[in-house]
């Protein structure tokens, strides 16, 4: 094992880690912005919009992220209309394709999580708010949504780890993320283990930090739901 090669190339892994972290974080952020209204519409079963969102969610949750990424990155370039359009400078770039695909994917999973969380908010909480004279909009923004987001924390924590792990496919379309750095190292020195083992260790460390962070958040924000002994 030549882990000295990893040490010599630590900058490449650090840059890869930064790429993975920011790509994952941005995708989650954009996905969340899609999911909050979409989840609310699904929970309220608003006509026309709700079935449309359901199709979006079903399509993105029912297919592999890799296929979605290939469809956007390789697929869209097939059409001349896309290549001639103003969006081409963006859609040509592997990074933007990955960001768009990951955001849509995370948005679909998060929509389901938020819908489920909204549906588990007890009716009593909302009736209490209403009886205090809050307007329907205030009930939504001050009671329903904050309460639902707290309840969504455990599943959303899983989604964050899922997105982190899903983001490895970015390396397939030439993005230098953690796995990209590992593959480059292996190819450069003709070795089989070191790059992948380093990548695995980095992903595992980030996963553990995230799991720990969400456990702390749950302890703080779900305190009122814990059964006291």
């Amino acid at each position: 094992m030549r882990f000295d090669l990893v040490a010599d190339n630590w900058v490449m892994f650090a840059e890869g880690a930064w790429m993975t972290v920011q790509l994952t974080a941005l995708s989650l952020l954009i996905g969340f912005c899609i999911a909050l209204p979409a989840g609310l519409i699904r929970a309220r079963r608003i006509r026309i919009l709700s079935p449309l969102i359901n199709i979006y969610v079903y399509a993105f949750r029912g297919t592999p992220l890799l296929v979605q990424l290939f469809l956007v990155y390789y697929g869209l370039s097939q059409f001349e209309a896309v290549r001639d359009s103003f969006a081409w400078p963006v859609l040509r770039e592997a990074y933007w394709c990955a960001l768009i695909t990951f955001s849509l994917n995370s948005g679909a999973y998060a929509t389901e999580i938020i819908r489920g969380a909204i549906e588990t908010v007890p009716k009593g909480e909302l009736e209490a708010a209403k009886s205090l004279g809050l307007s329907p909009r205030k009930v939504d923004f001050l009671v329903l949504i904050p309460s639902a987001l707290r309840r969504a924390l455990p599943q959303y924590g899983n989604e964050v780890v899922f997105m982190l792990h899903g983001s490895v496919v970015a390396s397939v379309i030439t993005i230098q993320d953690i796995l990209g750095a590992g593959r480059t190292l292996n190819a450069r020195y003709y070795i089989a283990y070191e790059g992948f083992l380093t990548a695995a260790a980095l992903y595992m460390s980030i996963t553990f930090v995230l799991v720990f962070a969400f456990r702390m958040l749950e302890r703080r924000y779900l305190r009122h739901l814990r059964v006291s002994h």
Partner: protein
Amino acid sequence: MENLIEYMPLLLSGALVTITLALFSLVLATVLGALGATGKLSGGIIAKSIVGVYTTLVRGVPDLVLILLIYFGGQRLLNIVGNWFDADYIELSKFWAGVGAIGFIYGAYLTETFRGAYMTIPPGQIDAAKALGMRPISVLRTVTIPQLISFALPGYANVWQVLIKSTAVVSIIGLEDLVGLANDAGKSVREPFIFFAFVFCMYLLFTFISQNIFMYAERKYALKGHDDAV
């Protein structure tokens, strides 16, 4: 579109590779999950810690990283060992490397599924069966297993749905599955969108069919409401 029709037999053969890969992986994952759950529930300290390391390790590392590690690392290992015996260059099968990797990954998830299902069985039932003088094997067959199936099915269905999507990344080590073949064919006829759209629809179909099969199974193995009769 004509290109897609022309390539259809090839793509369908790829779909068959994807499905067999998923099914073999599921079998391996089920065996590993059953072993893991047994180890965690009734093993000694050593068995418990081995299973603990296994499940934490797998849940911390992305599937593609493990697949690459098993395929390229396994290839190197096989030939180092082969060299000791003066063997010729051995080529590791992409298909079986994929089955090994995916089965290994989802075995960890099934360990938790089976363990959770076993723990939902009220221990009093097993004690009662023993008190009636039933042999351990018949306790297993008539009390434990039927309930285990019904409690584990929803989790098992979830793992399967994630597993089948996970097979797509095996194409990255060059396996000629649905995704790999569509990638090559779509690029050579310059219609990648149409070919990947087809793959997209095929996966939706897999998801849809498996959903229905599991819904049927859950109904079939549902415990006949013994609780609400009380």
